[in-house]
């Protein structure tokens, strides 16, 4: 953190550093292997050869939260699952991002009842919401591209 804050007022150097860092982040963002319901099936399809998430630097899903940068919450989050989800999020190293995939994760979808968390943003901070029930693989890729646009806009002074 110290270096970034020192670099914070160096003009063109930091701009180029920002671009480099954001470029590298968007080209090697590993998602966590973490599926909760039917959206996970579409997430698998996105990873498979027809849509091939490797084109976006997501070479493989990491099964460990300590090796992943991106959490794709794919599916409905039950009240019982919510603490586990938060724990997994806390175990991920910074910088980390969250995509809320599908209606159930984003706001409960049709499951407006006592068992389902009405939106995973009650538990973790969400960067991108993807609509669909479940979203097509293309829709998930669109969400990932939206996230990349957001990451490319990040600034050094906002880090940490």
């Amino acid at each position: 953190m110290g270096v970034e804050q020192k670099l914070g007022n160096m003009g063109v150097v930091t701009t180029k550093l920002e671009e480099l860092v954001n470029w590298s982040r968007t080209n090697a963002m590993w998602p966590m292997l973490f599926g909760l319901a039917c959206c996970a099936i579409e997430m698998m399809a996105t990873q498979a050869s027809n849509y091939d998430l490797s084109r976006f630097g997501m070479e493989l899903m990491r099964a460990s939260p300590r090796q992943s940068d991106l959490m794709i919450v794919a599916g409905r989050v039950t009240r019982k699952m919510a603490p586990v989800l938060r724990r997994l999020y806390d175990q991920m190293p910074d910088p980390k991002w969250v995509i809320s995939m599908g209606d159930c994760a984003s706001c409960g979808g049709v499951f407006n009842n006592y068992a389902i968390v009405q939106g995973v943003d009650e538990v973790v901070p969400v960067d991108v919401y993807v609509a669909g029930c479940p979203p097509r693989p293309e829709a998930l890729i669109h969400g990932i591209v939206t996230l990349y646009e957001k990451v490319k806009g990040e600034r050094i002074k906002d880090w940490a």
Partner: protein
Amino acid sequence: MSFVKDTLDGVKATFTGLATTFREMVRPPVTIQYPEEKRPVRPRFKGRHVLKRYDNGLEKCIGCSLCSAACPADAIFVESAENTDDERYSPGERYARVYEINMLRCIFCGYCEDACPTEAIVLGDNYELSFTDRRSSIYTKEFLIEPVPEGGKATPQKVEPGIYTRSVPAMKDPED
């Protein structure tokens, strides 16, 4: 001699196994380069909603809220207001003053399409719905309504009294 035979068997097995690899090397790749190249959707695909208009530019939606009643996820909110002949939005008595769909609630089941008596709401073929905040996932009438067709006038229109008294168009073929 069994040593020679084992070696030859090993070589044969290696090439048998690699045959798949070599075959896949010359095959064209199956990957669809999504953001650049889009696979066309099926005719009955259910994507983002579109609110339709008649050819003269009047809105088909009459603000009856049947879609919102049919919606299993409670994603649609409709608030209707009265039409007058000086400010006419749709045929009949009422029109939808507020029409909002929460795209994150909607499960794209198409029940709203089935419930609509005027075929005003149709599920289109846009599936690219990603938002960075929940607020922008609520699509208002301005987002959903299709542009005024060629030769039509924008709403509200000033019309002659007594023409548009019927909110649901008369069906030519009830079987349809």
